[in-house]
């Protein structure tokens, strides 16, 4: 009973002192502050000695891995770009070579054609000259024959008409007539 009344008195005093707010009961402050400081020191030691270095190391490791992977990916990309450039270059070379071959072939063909044309022209010219010579010959022969015939005929006509004329005069007159 004695202790109970003592407790009741204590609570009453406490209640009066704190006006219903245990937060303002200053008799417990020492206790709270003591345990708070113990708690904070323990948390600080655990975090700074164990947890934070560990988490920091893991995060740094991960950042390193990610950076390495990105660098590797960048390198592969560069390689792919190089390969593409090499392919493009090879393609361009092949195209240029093909164009050169086409050009050479075309030039050769043109050369051959030119030569063949020249040869054909030459042959044609030779044939034409030959033909012309033949024609000239034939024409000369024909003129001669016509002159002979005309001279003979003129002589015959002169004879038939009862005239006589020297051979040379008739031939000269026919020749003059044919020329004129």
């Amino acid at each position: 009973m004695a202790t109970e009344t003592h407790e009741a008195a204590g609570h009453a005093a406490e209640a009066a002192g704190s006006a219903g707010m245990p937060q303002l009961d200053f008799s417990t402050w020492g206790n709270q502050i003591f345990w708070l400081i113990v708690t904070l020191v323990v948390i600080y030691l655990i975090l700074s000695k164990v947890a934070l270095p560990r988490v920091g190391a893991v995060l740094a490791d991960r950042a390193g891995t990610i950076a390495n992977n990105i660098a590797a990916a960048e390198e592969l990309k560069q390689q792919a770009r190089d390969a593409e450039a090499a392919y493009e270059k090879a393609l361009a070379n092949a195209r240029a070579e093909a164009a050169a071959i086409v050009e050479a072939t075309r030039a050769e063909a043109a050369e051959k054609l030119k030569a063949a044309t020249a040869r054909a022209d030459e042959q044609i010219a030779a044939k034409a000259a030959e033909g012309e010579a033949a024609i000239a010959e034939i024409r000369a022969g024909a003129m001669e024959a016509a002159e002979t015939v005309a001279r003979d005929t003129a002589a015959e006509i002169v004879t038939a008409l009862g005239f006589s004329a020297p051979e040379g005069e008739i031939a000269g007159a026919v020749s003059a007539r044919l020329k004129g």
Partner: protein
Amino acid sequence: MATEAAHGAEEGSSLVFHPMDQFIVKPLFGGTEVHWYTITNVTLWMAITVLAIIALMVLGTSGKKQVPSRGQSMAEMAYGFVYKMVEDVTGKDGLRYFPYIFTLFMFIVFANVLGLVPMSFTTTSHFAVTIVLALAVFLTVTILGFVLHGAQFLGLFWVSSAPLAVRPLLAMIEVISYFVRPVSHSIRLAGNMMAGHAVIKVFAGFAAIAAVSPVSILAIVGMYGLEILVAFIQAYVFTILTCVYLKDALHPAH
């Protein structure tokens, strides 16, 4: 206990609210006297906070995996969150103080969240706790400011960009606001924690009336969700304000 008996008697007759009883500091192993060394519910819940932090930050990260497990991922998120906050607010040179700030953040966030476990005790709802936290920040920042910058630290109060005539007035305001910092810093946290828990208790008291109990239970559910949000936000606010004050000590120029 005499008070409890009285409560019991009252409960028998009508509705009674004791929303503040949850904050009473009690010795765990008998006795009523609370000495500074007494093992109380404060001790218990602070110890649980420490264990929870060990579970997350030490056991959770024990794998040290490149591809993190769920626990390790949470620990890394907490680390990254506070690290980025410190870096963004105080700059690179503030990162030296990252372990201290992380300690503060982890203690507050775990104490807040564990305080939401039914029948638990919320250590951060007590001014004794939050004032120590806020004063530690305040004293550290002030001493650090003078150690790093000497008398130039006082430039924090002398707004050189303002016209000369109003500078003394501004300096007075700056000094007052500087000394109010630990007060607002601590009361904000304890007040938020206390108010939310007390409101939940009041709603729980209403649940004794059959007619309103469904509404009251819904209200408790809603408040509880809100309180989870508040638990994280207040830890965040406390930490970011710590960073802001630290920035003032590191770079006192306006």
